[in-house]
């Protein structure tokens, strides 16, 4: 962390460093969603009542998504003689997904707990918390997923509605590895773009990881229902604990790079405020 400098220059390339650091924080947060519920699950969570099914199903799907992404780039890794590590990661995630799917399939019948008195205004089909659902729809599944989806599927394409998006792309090096066709950057850096395919891989992997975090948030806040036995509350808290911690971690990394980004005319204050608000709201419903 001490390598983070307060000013961006051509030599220190803080934008690419930012991508790698945020990727690390997002990866830690992503896999925390699997580790925490399994190792430190809530006391009222019960395996036989299916409280772990949403986290297992979404984790298996996310593992397969990440494996597919590595498989897409595997040829590049093989040519570079660096395919051992991606194969190890793919093997681990695929095996874990297979085990999760086996336990999901083997536990076809789950028992339901005794009915509880539902809070006022709630039915068994309601979302657990409207506040978190709205917050996550706006931030985690909204703006963050929009930018992450752009980074994954359309790297280098400027979204005109987002202020200073072109500066964000320039700072993170997207114009180097994926200059938009017909643009000034394409004329200047188009011939060099294949040199930066490694940066493109990292940027796209970051986009995918943020999208996967958005999937967890979407599942927990929108797809899980309250339930007549109040099981929705138990299921969502498994997600929210990890989501709030991962959100806080990403906010911390963004804050560390705020000065470096500011020196490149990129103001991260709005990013920090929105992500910190989401992490705060999720944490409020779990830890308060």
């Amino acid at each position, binding site marked *: 962390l001490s390598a983070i400098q307060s000013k961006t220059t051509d030599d220190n*390339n803080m934008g690419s460093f930012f991508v790698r650091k945020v990727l690390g924080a997002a*990866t*830690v947060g992503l896999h925390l969603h699997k580790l925490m519920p399994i190792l430190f699950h809530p006391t009222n969570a019960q*395996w036989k009542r299916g409280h772990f099914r949403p986290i297992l199903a979404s984790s298996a799907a996310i593992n397969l998504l990440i494996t597919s992404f590595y498989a897409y780039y595997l040829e590049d890794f093989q040519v570079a003689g660096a395919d*051992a590590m991606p194969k190890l990661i793919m093997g681990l995630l695929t095996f874990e997904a297979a085990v999760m799917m086996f336990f999901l399939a083997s536990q076809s019948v789950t028992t339901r707990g005794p009915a509880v008195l539902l809070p006022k205004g709630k039915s068994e089909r309601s979302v657990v918390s409207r506040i978190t659902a709205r917050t996550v729809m706006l931030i985690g599944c909204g703006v963050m997923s929009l930018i992450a989806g752009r980074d994954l599927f359309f790297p280098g394409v400027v979204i005109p509605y987002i202020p200073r998006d072109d500066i964000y792309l320039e700072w993170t090096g997207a114009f180097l590895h994926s200059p938009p066709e017909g643009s000034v950057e394409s004329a200047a850096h188009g011939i060099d773009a294949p040199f930066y395919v490694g940066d493109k891989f990292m940027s796209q992997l970051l986009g995918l990881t943020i999208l996967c975090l958005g999937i967890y948030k979407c599942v927990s806040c929108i797809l899980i229902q309250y339930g007549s036995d109040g099981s929705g509350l138990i299921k969502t808290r498994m997600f929210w604990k990890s989501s709030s911690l991962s959100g806080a971690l990403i906010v911390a990394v963004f804050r560390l790079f705020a000065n470096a980004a500011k020196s490149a005319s990129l103001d991260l204050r709005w990013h920090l405020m929105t992500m910190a608000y989401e992490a705060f709201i999720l944490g409020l419903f779990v830890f308060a």
Partner: protein
Amino acid sequence: MTTRRGKKSTKNNAVVKNDPAKLSHDVGKSSIVLAEHLPPLALVFTVLICSGVVWVLGLRDLLATGKPFLGSIDEAYLVSGSLMFIKWVCNCSLSHVSFPLLIFPCSTLQNRHNGLTTVMDGSQLKVD
């Protein structure tokens, strides 16, 4: 107390003998906790090993970016993350160049642009 494998624990039996009133309560509570609350051990260990390794790799990227700790395969992965352009070099049929010579331990603007000078001449590529 009923353990995960269904064996009786002698420690809690002693407690139960001293206080028979707690017998049904404790045994019932423990069996619910162990048999119904906990996820299967196979799943726990699988997640611990598989996600644990990838989690540690993520932590490495966060706290010690670029420092390999799983030996040569990790180093090759990290280097390729910065300089995975060798595919492009290979496509230019540059078979006589030793690829590791193109890989530098750290990526800078200099070794990207000056260390590897490309001269496109038809399908040939020369490395300085």
